[in-house]
């Protein structure tokens, strides 16, 4: 009887630990793809917007960049001012991961005030990083890498 109770408690504890690990491994504050609310037909409009955005993305990125985005699920953009820094922009809206010398140093969350399609969001991050990096970093909410994912940081500069 005592053994049974022991195993029962142990199993419950194991389940609890697994649950906690599962919760910690989730990407925090993940930005969900926003869809504008609207009357009937809004879903079709949104699909058309996604297609337009995809066409624009394909037009502006080089073949190599677009292939990388399709294959790896992210687009790498080199920092124009910080030597070893690379930004990884996700294919679908979410955090931009920052790597220095191949090591993740932080994640950034920046989003458009107006809902925009995924393709336009990729373009938005790329243009902001290339042409307005300091402002991009000033606006972004930052997350520090940990064993369990990225956690929010207090505001800081650079």
């Amino acid at each position, binding site marked *: 009887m005592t053994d049974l109770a022991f195993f029962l408690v142990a199993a419950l504890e194991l389940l609890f630990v697994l649950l906690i690990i599962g919760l910690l491994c989730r990407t925090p504050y993940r930005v969900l793809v926003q869809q504008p609310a609207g009357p009937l037909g809004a879903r079709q409009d949104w699909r058309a*917007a996604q297609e337009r955005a995809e066409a624009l993305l394909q037009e502006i990125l080089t073949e190599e960049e677009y292939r990388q985005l399709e294959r790896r699920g992210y687009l790498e953009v080199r920092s124009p001012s910080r030597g070893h820094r690379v930004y990884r922009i996700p294919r679908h809206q979410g955090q931009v991961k920052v790597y220095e010398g191949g090591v993740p140093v932080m994640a950034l*969350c920046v989003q458009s005030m107006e809902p925009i399609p995924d393709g336009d969001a990729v*373009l*938005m991050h790329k243009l902001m990083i290339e042409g*307005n990096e300091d402002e991009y970093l000033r606006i972004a909410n930052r997350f520090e890498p940990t064993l369990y994912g990225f956690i929010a940081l207090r505001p800081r500069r650079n």
Partner: protein
Amino acid sequence: MAKLRVLSSRGDTVVEWDEKKVELGDPDALAAVREAERIFEEQRARGATAFVVTPDKPAQRIDTFDPQAEQVVMVPRVAGG
């Protein structure tokens, strides 16, 4: 053809004009440039940021409308998420 593109929830909206016709004073081309400039200023007032996009070159931020730029893309106002 030069283009002004504005990113929005509908995808991008585009205004196009022919720079050569603008130089020759073509009324339609001049009207298109004026319309592009009006949209540019309107979007800037809403907090949008404009970039000149040139193939194989990093994007360049601009604060005033450039009718000679091959392609200008305007990004809506952004915030920390």
